[in-house]
């Protein structure tokens, strides 16, 4: 048992970070496939992911072990392989959000699109945060989540006046095949099951904590769905071209002509939270690498050299990929939509469900053994 986090921090992570990761490009992507029915593929993905998060959260209340400790019984090789694979998965899961962030930063922080170099200081922060472990992620969430909620609420309030919900009608006119295609294409945004699986055993879950985590995730799903609905009801048929809606939705708010683009301040606050959500992938990746190497992430209160080295390595890899795919966001996204969905299905849905089942089975066995004694 590793008490890096507490239940509240897990709830914050499961509420704010899933929303932060899904409101940049997913609305435009889903509206491309499903037009006014863009909420339904998201609901489909969320329902499946919700079941997984529930199972893992429930398993957290039954076992104090991490996922890797649970599968340790299957042999050292299996455990190491799982650690490396999950590390690879989190690095891969971070790539598209990184490219999205890069484009988002270039669009909303600058009047004229600057060169890639302007985004590279992110990796300095990423090296630092990545090496600090999950305790840092939890505490950061304590600050980032309330900030994100306030910023999102401000943005929604500013943009709701320009919405026309009738654009969402008639519902379910899109063929089912397209809805499923949209859901499959959006699957690379759903890593919440994998994140929850990695948090298992890193906080002391008590009775009732499962309910809190599940409610947080449900609230996150509702927020994303509400955002998607609002997004389409503002932009309607031009939605597929509206990337980075966060910076555009409130642009028609009447007060902005008087007070300037104050909506950008909310967008910047959300950007901070989005960066932390992205950094969580890096932190999880570094954690997996450190565990695979059998090294501690912290030496006393300081970052261990192994953790620092792992963080540097992971970030160098990610930075190299970002530089390599600088002008290739759409091909990379297409690759993820077409081929990587299977990997996301495996790591975010199947493996967490299997992990939860293993934890529950182990718990039941433990209980039976206790009764026999």
């Amino acid at each position, binding site marked *: 048992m590793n008490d890096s986090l*507490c239940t*509240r*921090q897990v709830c914050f992570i499961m509420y704010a970070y899933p929303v932060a990761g899904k409101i940049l490009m997913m609305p435009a992507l889903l509206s491309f496939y499903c037009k006014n029915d863009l909420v339904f593929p998201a609901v489909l993905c969320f329902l499946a992911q919700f079941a997984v998060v529930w199972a893992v959260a429930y398993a957290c209340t039954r076992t104090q072990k991490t996922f890797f400790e649970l599968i340790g019984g299957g042999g050292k090789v299996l455990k190491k392989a799982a650690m490396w694979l999950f590390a690879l998965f989190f690095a891969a899961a971070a790539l598209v959000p990184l490219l999205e962030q890069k484009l988002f*930063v270039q669009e909303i*922080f*600058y*009047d004229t699109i*600057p060169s890639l170099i*302007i*985004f590279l*200081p*992110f990796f*300095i*922060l990423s090296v*630092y*945060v990545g090496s*600090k472990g999950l*305790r*840092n992620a*939890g*505490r*950061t969430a*304590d*600050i*980032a989540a309330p900030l994100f909620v306030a910023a999102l609420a401000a943005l929604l309030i500013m943009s709701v006046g320009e919405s026309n919900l009738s654009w969402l009608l008639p519902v379910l006119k899109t063929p089912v095949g397209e809805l499923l295609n949209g859901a499959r294409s959006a699957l690379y945004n759903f890593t919440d099951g994998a994140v929850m699986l990695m948090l298992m055993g890193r906080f002391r879950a008590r009775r009732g904590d499962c309910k809190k985590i599940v409610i947080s995730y449900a609230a996150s799903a509702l927020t994303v769905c509400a955002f998607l609905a609002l997004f389409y009801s503002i932009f309607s048929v031009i939605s597929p071209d509206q990337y980075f809606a966060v910076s555009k939705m409130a642009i028609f708010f009447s007060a902005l*002509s*008087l*007070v*300037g*683009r104050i909506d*950008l301040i909310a967008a*910047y606050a959300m*950007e*901070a939270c989005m*960066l*932390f959500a992205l950094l969580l992938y890096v932190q999880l990746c570094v954690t997996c690498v450190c565990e695979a190497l059998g090294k501690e992430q912290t030496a006393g*209160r300081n970052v261990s050299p192994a953790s620092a080295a792992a963080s540097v390595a992971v970030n160098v890899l990610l930075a190299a990929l970002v530089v390599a795919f600088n002008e290739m966001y759409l091909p990379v996204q297409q690759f993820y939509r077409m081929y990587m969905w299977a990997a996301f299905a495996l790591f975010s849905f199947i493996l967490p469900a299997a992990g939860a089942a293993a934890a529950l089975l182990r718990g039941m066995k433990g209980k039976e053994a206790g009764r026999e004694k």
Partner: protein
Amino acid sequence: MCSLEKNIERIKGVLVSEDVITYEFSSAAGKRFALIYVDGLAEKAQLGELVVKPLAAVAKDASLSDVRPVLASPEVKEGSDYDMAVKEISYGGAALLVDGESGFFIIGLTKPPGRAVAEPPTQIAVKGPREGFTEDIKVNCALVRKRLKTPSLRMETVRCGRRSDTAVTICYLSDVCDPSVPEKVKERIAANQIDIVADSSYIGRFISSRPRSLFKRCATAEKPDIFCAKLCEGRAGIIVDGSPIALTVPYMLAEDFQSSEDYFISSYRATILRVLRVIAVIVGIFLPATYVAAQLFKLQLIPFRLLINISSSVSGIPLSPSVEMFLTLFVLEVLNEASIRMPKYVGLAISVVGALVLGETAVSAGIISTPAIIIVAFSAICLYVVPDLMETTATLRWINLIIAGSVGTFGIVLFACFIISYLVTEQAYGVPLTAPFAPMISRDLKDGMFKADMFNLPLRPEALGGKNKVRLRKKK
């Protein structure tokens, strides 16, 4: 038999200095005595009244044991170790030597020069106590004891400084404070030996887990009421001889946004003031940088009409926005430094020359623009809302400005993220620096940004982890 001269020589041989006075006198019976003290540190009049006069009147040949009852001074220590005598004389005591005796007495009649208790220049409260600490550790300890009459108040003195041998008193309430805190403080002080402890800030660095950090690890208090309130919350306090600024640990960043007056006025008003302080500090750190970034990289951030005004002000300015802001901030820092260091009368002239003449002329000469001066001046005022954090926030403002001028708005957000990431895992004496916000401690949030009424704060801060949780009991 030890002769008086020999004993005097044992002390004077070590304390070879003109300010160490030896006063020899005899009793009525002809017994010889000598008082050795530091001129200016010992209270001579009292020595005469309480020591010399009674001894001079003794009509028989008195031994060491006979002398003790005659001494009318309340603080008398008997000793035979002359190294100890040398130390006590240096601390301000007087050594009484008796002819023919190897032992001696230390008379504790010290009266070091110092100023009277007065209101400190910082931590001023419009409503509330006005007494402030002085440079005299005994006065400071007495001010604390005056407010905390509980027997659980512990004061333990250690000494620090190879040459200054400065007294450092650690105060805490034994039934409230986590016992590991004062122990750790003593350990850390003992681990550092420097020539002189000129101020409590030296001790502040010694007891800090990260002394090179930009963010401090212990709070300061210039007033005994604040100091005592912090002790009652479960903190340990450190009073250093020669410094009017006491320290308290563990430290939380939120402490600096609180004022003693918050506890004396309405909780609604106190909440508004706390929010105001937080906003002021954020504005103070980020405003100059945001102005530069907005001008260089994102003009949309500035409202259109304001943008027109700014553009008319900056047109013709030969410097880029970042260089202009850098220069203005530099001038402000120089003026600030000069007005503090200069004698009062010259300081006033400098303020006039700097603020009025230099500012006005620079604008009319077209070197810097009016918005730049307004922003820098407002930023400076904002940072002084929380003076205890001034060192940190002013440095952050510089760093932010450099980042804003090079990376732009995204750099500011990245830097803010970096600061958050750094602070959330930092701790002082096991207490997170950003508590009660990260980790969020719901009970302590009542006295964080929001200030609940006194009756809604019956428990001591949970973050400090003290022993006795309840601070307010209401009789039904």
